[in-house]
């Protein structure tokens, strides 16, 4: 379970304030808990998210690959986190008939929006990789994933030059709340060769607990980026108007948009 209880303010208000050293000085003056709830401090702390992103983009090339492992490294079970069995009627109906009528909708800033069945996706260039899933909580789990290479799928719908982010809209209302899970990655991560729309896990169909019928694998990011139960992919130039405006379910609850560390 995740423990986030409090929410950071609107990121548009976060500004890059220079002089990170002031942070330590103010920490010594008052209790750190009240500091953690202070807007200016949250702005300052939030600025490091973009700093980390810029620095990590600087040292990693577009093609630098996540480590791939051997068959014997695969964990006995791939730990399922977050939603493991979406309870809404629409999803249950799809699950009941084996996702035969399920279609992935891709729209937004694309020239050829489309709907794709699992068989359509399986017919596209695919990749199988044994990779490590890293949860923001600290644990890791190795599994074998098979899926359509997202970059190839995107080439079919032809993103416009205005497209900057790929948003994944999901079927699960996590923890039974009214809000549905969603996530976003940028075009660099979307066109990374290991970024997959995965429909297979450990040489089998992707189980419901791990996101059937389709989940994202973005191997250079933390687990919360890798949306499960993907129903729709939307290309946007900004995610400010989607749900809480921070680019993801956990981002709206205070976690960093850049999940590379």
């Amino acid at each position: 379970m995740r423990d986030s209880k409090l929410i950071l303010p609107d990121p548009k208000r976060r500004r890059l304030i220079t002089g990170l050293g002031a942070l330590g000085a103010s920490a010594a003056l008052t209790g750190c808990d009240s500091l953690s709830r202070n807007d200016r401090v949250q702005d300052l702390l939030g600025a490091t998210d973009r700093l980390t992103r810029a620095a990590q983009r600087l040292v990693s090339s577009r093609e630098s690959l996540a480590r791939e492992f051997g068959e014997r490294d695969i964990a006995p079970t791939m730990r399922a986190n977050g939603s493991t069995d979406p309870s809404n009627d629409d999803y249950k109906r799809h699950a009941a008939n084996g996702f035969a009528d399920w279609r992935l909708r891709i729209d937004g800033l694309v020239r050829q929006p489309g709907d794709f069945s699992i068989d359509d996706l399986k017919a596209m260039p695919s990749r199988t990789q044994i990779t490590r899933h890293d949860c923001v909580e600290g644990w890791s789990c190795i599994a074998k994933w098979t899926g359509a290479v997202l970059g190839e799928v995107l080439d079919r719908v032809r993103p416009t030059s205005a497209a900057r982010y790929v948003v994944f809209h999901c079927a699960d209302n996590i923890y039974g709340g009214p809000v549905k899970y969603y996530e976003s990655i940028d075009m660099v991560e979307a066109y990374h060769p290991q970024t997959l729309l995965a429909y297979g896990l450990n040489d089998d169909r992707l189980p419901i607990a791990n996101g059937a019928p389709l989940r994202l694998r973005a191997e250079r990011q933390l687990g919360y980026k890798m949306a499960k139960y993907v129903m729709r992919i939307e290309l946007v130039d900004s995610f400010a108007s989607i749900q809480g405006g921070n680019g993801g379910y956990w981002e709206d609850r205070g976690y960093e948009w850049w999940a590379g560390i």
Partner: protein
Amino acid sequence: MNKHNDNPYANPPERARVIKRHGLFTRVWHWVNLVCLVILLMSGLQIFNAHPALYWGNDSSFDDPALQITAMRGDDGAPMGVVRIGGYRINTTGVLGLSRNDGELDTRAFPAWATLPGPQWLAMGRYWHFAAAWVFAPLLLAYLVYTLISPARRRLVWPTAAQWRGLPATIAHHARLKFDHSADYNGLQKLTYLLVLFGLLPLMVLTGLTMSPTMNAAWPWLLDVFGGRQSARTLHFIFAFLLVAFFVIHLGLVLISGVFNNLRSMITGRYRLGDDAPADKDNRHA
């Protein structure tokens, strides 16, 4: 070498025996580091609490952690805090696994008083951790490069031939809690600082980076050096507590070897030499 003798010129008046021991860069670095390391430790414990178990290797063998801090029911049915290391179980009720927070019993690995922020709040713990790391790591790099390229600073931390030979004597001296107050660090001090500055602190940064999936793609050698992401996480935890041990010893020695003089030297730079200390200008600190 300097010898203590009765020559009046070798024993200058009181004022001259106060030297400038620490340069501005060292002093600022020292105190900024203290703030950073406290924030890094406490926010690190907050992050650890999100999954209070350690493993060895690439991934997490959930059934067989190397270390786990948890809460469970004791034989009498009462809740208790437990630390499990391998096959051993230690009752840590009140501190680890189960502790009081505002009078309420809370099941959490490290208690609220030790974490930043106090309540379970992983997202905010991460923000504090990475913000402090962004101050700490570049300053550490600057300090280490400065120390390597400056001959004067190299002399500060590298023991002289005489100090290497005198190490056993220095250790015996320290064991009897006798301290010199000379301009130069003694051999034992230098070795300790070398180990912390060029060993523990860079290892903290590197094991931290090894936990980043993007860094694993950028610098895959990190995984080979530390034996996988979960090994790196375990080492990060161990090194952090070695730093805590250094901090405790460092603080203890500062307190018993002349707390006012020591503190003044790290605030204003000025340090009063002991009566029998050599006043060799060459040994002065930059």
